[in-house]
């Protein structure tokens, strides 16, 4: 473990995790060089649903981390850094079938048991609290104190606040090995960049760099944005998450996923628009959206919020999340190195967890105690999978 704060760091990847880590390292007085194969927020961060949420989590390390993630957003909103880019709102989980009601009852109890403020709304309460919801909503659970943030805005804010410039179009070829168990920096197409510590937060790009092709896997998500619909938007007190999402996400079934899962989240944005998602697909290009998925998502959305039918769809887009085979992210020291770290594999939780993980990683790299428990996410659990060295 480094005995003192490093003077310099090189960070590979300027998604939300890399940008957050850069920001917090700068706060520790570290001089940061931030590299990206393309540009800031060019991949998953720029195509995320933006949930800052514990609503879909089961008790366990991910829920614990997500609670800290939400708390940090609130803190940074209160202190000014995120004041105008974090939207505080509830998440309303909606069950429309017997199966979904059953799962949702159990899920609400689990959330409550973990100290999350939840409220069960019966049909009459729903009509009053959330008039835009259709009568198909049989059971609604309001998860309080959640929020929404747009990934690329968070990245932009972190980078601007840290005063860090990004070296765009700078893919990293390898980690430069120094003496003993030390990394000396990284190798790019333009040559070596030396630094006291190396941090890999390169999303799916981390796989090749760290030889984790068998550990990290891309998971496509398709998302939709509507035009502004201010009246409908203002009538929604929070986001809607279909109870089916709990089934689709596999978080109730121990990480079992189907090749193409369809969930539904409808988030009323600060602009008056709606963000509607999404899919979880093990195959597919991030360049494409298909009518089949878009039509199914929207059919489900209109079933729950009928007034959406008259709102126009403005854009579709897609991104590739980085998933880890065991469903937990990969955060911590890279096996074989004293001074090289990785933070990736957040799948659909990168926006929620990016800042809090960036802060924890900066602490770890500076020899301080991280504010969240990173042990469940330690890369050493895959040490036999050919992580570098």
């Amino acid at each position: 473990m480094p005995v003192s704060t490093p003077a310099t760091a090189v960070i590979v990847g300027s998604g939300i995790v890399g940008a957050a880590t850069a920001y917090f390292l700068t706060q520790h007085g570290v001089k940061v060089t931030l590299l990206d194969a393309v540009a800031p927020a060019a991949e998953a961060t720029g195509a995320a649903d933006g949930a800052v949420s514990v609503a879909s989590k089961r008790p366990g390390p991910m829920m614990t981390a997500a609670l800290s993630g939400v708390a940090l957003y609130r803190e940074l909103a209160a202190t000014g850094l995120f004041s105008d880019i974090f939207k505080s709102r509830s998440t309303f989980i909606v069950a429309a079938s017997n199966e979904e009601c059953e799962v949702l009852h159990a899920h609400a109890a689990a959330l409550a048991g973990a100290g999350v403020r939840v409220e069960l709304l019966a049909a009459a309460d729903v009509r009053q609290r959330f008039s835009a919801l259709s009568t198909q909503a049989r059971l609604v659970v309001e998860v309080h104190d959640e929020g929404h943030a747009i990934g690329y805005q968070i990245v932009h804010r972190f980078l601007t606040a840290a005063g860090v410039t990004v070296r765009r179009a700078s893919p990293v070829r390898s980690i430069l090995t120094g003496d003993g168990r030390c990394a000396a920096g990284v190798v790019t197409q333009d040559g070596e960049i030396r630094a006291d510590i190396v941090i890999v937060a390169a999303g799916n790009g981390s796989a090749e760099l760290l030889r984790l092709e068998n550990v990290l896997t891309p998971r496509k998500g398709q998302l939709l944005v509507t035009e502004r619909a201010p009246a409908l938007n203002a009538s929604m007190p929070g986001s809607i998450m279909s109870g089916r999402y709990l089934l689709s996400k596999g978080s109730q079934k121990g990480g079992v996923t189907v090749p193409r899962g369809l969930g539904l989240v409808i988030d009323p944005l600060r602009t008056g628009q709606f963000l509607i998602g999404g899919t979880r697909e093990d195959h597919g290009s991030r360049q494409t959206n298909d009518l089949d998925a878009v039509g199914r998502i929207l059919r489900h959305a209109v079933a729950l919020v009928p007034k959406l039918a008259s709102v126009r769809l403005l854009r579709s887009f897609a991104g590739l999340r980085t998933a880890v085979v065991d469903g937990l992210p990969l955060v911590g020291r890279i096996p074989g190195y004293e001074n090289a770290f990785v933070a990736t594999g957040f799948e659909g939780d990168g926006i929620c967890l990016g800042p809090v993980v960036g802060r924890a990683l900066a602490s770890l790299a500076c020899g301080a105690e991280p504010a969240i428990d990173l042990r469940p996410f330690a890369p050493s659990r895959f040490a036999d999978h050919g992580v570098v060295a």
Partner: protein
Amino acid sequence: MIEAQVLVIGAGPAGLAAAIEASRAGLAVTVVEQRETIGGAIYRQAVLGAPATYQPPAVRARWRRLVHDFAGCGITVRHGSVFLGIDGDGLAIVENRGTGHVEPVAAKAVIIAVGAIEKVLPRPGWNKAGVSTVGGLQIMMKETGRAPEGRILLAGSGPLLIAVAAQMARLGNAPVAVVEAGDPFRHPLTGGGLLAYPTLLAEALFYLKDVWLRGIPWLRATTVAGIEAGADGLVATLHDYTGTERRVAVDRIGLHDGIRPNDFGLSTPPGTSPVVVTAGDCREALGAVAAEADGRRAALSVIRLLQQREEVGTTAALRRERNAQGLLSELFAPVSARPLLSGLTDDTVLCRCENRTVGDLKALCGKEDPLSGREVKHNGRFAMGACQGRFCAENTARLMAELRQDAPAPSAVDLTGRRWPIRPVPIGALVCASDDTSKQE
């Protein structure tokens, strides 16, 4: 689900020529067209009872021949159908505005011929009510047979301004003036080059004679520097090449700074099916004659690509039109050497949908590290609105290039991306589309 051997998008000259050529080669062709008539913008037809548009005989002859040939092919045209793009499964997505449903089309080949859009450079006040595009005014005239009412100023650059001035005059309301940034008379040698293109020259003279005979002021080497609201209507401030300023009070202003391909958001499917070819002005904006030639080229390309041979390249007819348009661009090049956009005041609106200004973009681009087009879109909301970048992406990219000459110049597509729907579409219409497939679940 609709099935088609060849799907042609757009019934302007490129689409019609492509459909005719493909049909004559024995392929089954379906044409989708957003309007109720064929012809596109250039051959827009008048509503019943309205007088036909004042156009040179050669233009009318080209149209009659196209209509005749097209009618002889017995091709199905689906009117009221808006093309939304090609999805990741290779389906062409078409919104039927009649039924309010989205209709997926499975085609072996798709020829996209959706024409050009007008370029309009931002100027202070260009977003005020009463300001529209010159092409928009012309379309209205073609459809209704009536000139726009009131005192009209046409401004910008290019031969279209002259054509519309003549057409307005013929319909009884000549514009107050035509303001032209270039000055063709300064380039007599280039003008002489037009002698090699007699049809084009005849077309130019056909309209110019009306402008001269009726004494419509053609203010060359002059620009509209700003538009303000006046006591009754609008006041345009004109700057000529000597630096002289004058003000003109009018009711409406038409702006036009050329045309560019209407290729916003167009993507090709990831695989090899369907074969997708773009044709006409949406591939390269060279006008109606070139569009027809390019439509034929596209159809031949489709035939070859379906046989897994290579696409047909630029033809001699296309090269000729490209040269002619090149001459016109030189003739109408702006006389003032000032940068087009970076000299604009900070409060000049760049993106009308999201109300983003020149100053907003300058603030974003003033950082040490130059932002990419996509970052400017994300963090500045340029090209993010309902027009999906049609009116601002190119101007934003151009201003970025003027501001950051140290960075690679971004293009409009860096801001817009390539995604469907290329036009906003009601969610209800898409929901109907998926009903079809849901029955098979």
